[in-house]
């Protein structure tokens, strides 16, 4: 037996104590709904995990009202030091239940347990810790202006980092004194519902956090509801555009965190082996389901062959399979729909003339899977260089000079992230200066921290999450960070 055929090392799901059917979490308790019940499945096995409901407009209305009452009567009147302690409690409970949350997230999303355990859940806890500490010192963030919360926030989050995205939304909102109604993605509602339980365990006052499950229609009802003061949305540029249009002319504040087509720029003096790791992380971490993925590799022409040779060799050691196996590096694609999208755009790559290479890893028979794939000979005009694929597909382009690298990197309506690899510090600092991206990673990739603002330029959205900027997004002050009103 080959040593590299690691024996199964499965994480058990016995830690989960799930209900067979979840309702909506409104006003501090789980409530029934007239809405249709639908299943959430494991994308690795296609088996049903549990059932949730699709919240109706009436449900949305009820949730918003509950949030409003909680805001007016309790949360906006509560001293920051008390709000802080609730948030610290929530952070602690996330830490205490971290193993359970990691298993639930992996089951529902399809991403490897290694990622949920080591990244998603700890980062979610850290986000709450960071913002807990802001609740009692908001005036230090506003540069003298009296901090004022918005009121009720409608928040819609995507399926790629469910609990972490929830933390990015809920923590600063609550710290700033707002109450929230949050809709998780229809394919990944599980950890949001467990979070609702955590809010109960923390004794959070009723109505401060409301979780309503559902799909596009529920989301639309929420963001268009007249009773909310601000919308925070993370998802596709297509939907973000619709929301921005529907809120035009209204006083509702809006922040958007949308798609991207990040460029990973590798110069000939890059630390090559570490750059390979950064490229791999950039596009294969989370199966490429990352808005800030380094989905375009811009490699200096004179090191193209060396980089590609090392890259493909490295990709062949990536293990694709059961997300609950601790040795899995690449998990399942989140849904059939997403798999179809990836397949379609990837096929266009060959049609348009690029060369396709895929890892020789085995693909399980059940579930939704896509092998790590690299396209070389990609030109800037190709669909695979322009469109966000949101899957484990890397498009490789070349450049000759720093100026050309920057030009190609910026040649996109998106502007979320970029990576730069060079050992020459002066060039590094100059290149990062010129990149039109909200997050630039220098000699690293996919680094996130609650103190570090994250968000995009242009069609990657506006507003930042994390850091002081992320807090200001939830305060009504003269200082804004690109959000509306």
């Amino acid at each position: 037996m080959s040593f590299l055929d690691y024996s199964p090392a499965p994480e058990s799901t016995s830690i989960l104590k799930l209900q067979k059917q979840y309702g909506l979490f409104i006003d501090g308790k789980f409530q029934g709904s007239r809405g249709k019940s639908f299943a959430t499945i494991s994308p690795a096995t296609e088996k049903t995990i549990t059932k949730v409901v699709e919240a109706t407009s009436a449900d949305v209305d009820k949730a918003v009202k509950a949030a409003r009452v909680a805001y007016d009567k309790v949360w906006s009147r509560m001293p920051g030091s008390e709000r802080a302690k609730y948030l610290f409690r929530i952070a602690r409970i996330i830490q205490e239940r971290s193993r359970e949350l990691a298993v639930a997230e992996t089951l529902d999303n399809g991403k490897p347990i290694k990622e949920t355990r080591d990244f998603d859940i700890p980062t979610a806890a850290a986000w709450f810790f960071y913002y807990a500490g802001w609740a009692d010192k908001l005036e230090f963030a506003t540069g003298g202006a009296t901090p004022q919360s918005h009121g009720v926030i409608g928040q819609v989050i995507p399926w790629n980092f469910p609990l972490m995205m929830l933390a990015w939304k809920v923590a600063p909102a609550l710290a700033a004194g707002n109450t929230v109604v949050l809709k998780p993605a229809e394919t990944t509602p599980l950890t949001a519902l467990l979070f609702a339980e955590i809010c109960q365990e923390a004794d959070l006052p009723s109505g401060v956090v409301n979780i309503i499950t559902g799909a596009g229609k529920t989301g639309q009802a929420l963001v268009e509801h007249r009773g909310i003061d601000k919308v925070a949305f993370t998802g596709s540029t297509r939907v973000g555009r619709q929301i921005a249009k529907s809120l035009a002319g209204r006083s509702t504040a809006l922040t958007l965190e949308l798609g991207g087509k990040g460029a990973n720029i590798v110069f000939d003096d890059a630390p090559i082996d570490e750059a390979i790791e950064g490229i791999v992380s950039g596009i294969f971490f989370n199966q490429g389901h990352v808005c800030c993925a380094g989905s375009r590799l811009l490699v200096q022409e004179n090191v193209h062959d060396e980089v590609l040779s090392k890259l493909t060799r490295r990709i062949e050691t990536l293990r694709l399979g059961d997300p609950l196996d601790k040795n899995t590096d690449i998990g399942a694609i989140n849904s059939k729909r997403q798999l179809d999208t990836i397949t379609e755009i990837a096929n266009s790559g060959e049609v348009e003339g690029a060369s396709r290479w895929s890892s020789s890893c085995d693909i399980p028979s059940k579930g939704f899977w896509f092998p790590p794939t690299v396209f070389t000979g990609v030109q800037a005009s190709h669909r695979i260089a322009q469109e966000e694929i949101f899957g484990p597909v890397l498009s490789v382009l070349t450049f000759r000079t720093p100026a050309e690298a920057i030009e190609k990197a910026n040649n996109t309506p998106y502007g979320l992230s970029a990576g730069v690899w060079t050992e020459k510090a002066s060039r590094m600092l100059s290149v990062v200066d010129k990149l039109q991206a909200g997050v630039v990673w220098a000699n690293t990739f996919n680094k996130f921290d609650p103190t570090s603002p994250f968000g995009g330029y242009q069609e990657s959205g506006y507003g930042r999450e994390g850091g002081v900027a992320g807090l200001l997004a939830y305060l009504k002050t003269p200082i804004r960070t690109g959000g509306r009103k």
Partner: protein
Amino acid sequence: MSERVAVKKTYKLYIGGKFPRSESGYTMPVVSGSGEHLAHVAQASRKDARDAIVAARGAHAGWAGATAYNRGQVLYRIAEMLEGRREQFVEEIRQGESVSARVANQQVDHAIDAWVWYAGWSDKHAQVVGGANPVAGPFFNLSVPEPSGVVVAFAPQEQKGQSLLGLVQTIAPIIVTGNAVVVLSHPSQPLPAMSFAEVLHTSDVPGGVVNILTGERASIAPWVASHSDVNALDLMGAGELDWASLEEAAAETLKRVYTPVKGVPAVSLERISAFTEVKTIWHTKALG
């Protein structure tokens, strides 16, 4: 049935994460507000202070090198431990300050909330105080605050209401950024200081980051004020001493000095910044 005999506590110093007796062997009696004998506490000598400074210096690099997140976690855990032991503090404040349980409870509430306030600054201070500087040239320029190093602090007791709150106001802002501290507790309020040492000992703060000395402090004060391996002198609570001479002694090595404050100070960002140095970095930027 006769009343059960209680096992009374022996109070020692808190240095380097351990509880040693004073090397001098001296102790100081502690009486309650109503004159009742409470305990003997260790009388710290100048050698104890010297050892505490060595312990602080030894712990400083690791503590300053921890991530801000990690320090915040440790400080928050200290708040958890404080909350868990609140009855002990309430009792000591009640006896030591001769106040009602209600007033003592209020002080404990304020003290814990103040500690939590400071704990939350760990990963934010640099963002508010530091930042990028838009210099007039092709340079990347960044200012970051760094901890000063080893601080010797005099805990206050100008008036009642400070025995725990004063300790919090002294210690939290100093250590949150990565400094190590030697605290000379107020001679009239040593018991909450030693209970606080027990709290530290059961949280995850590394030994040597906080050191607490008890006893009369006027005679060891000049020794710490002039000690060359101390970076800052916190005289916030030293109002009853000849603090001007201490400040003069500190000037020999240009220590940073925080002068006395009357009354119970509010939580302040300024007290955190007072024990930091700002480092500014320049780096060239060029495409070629």
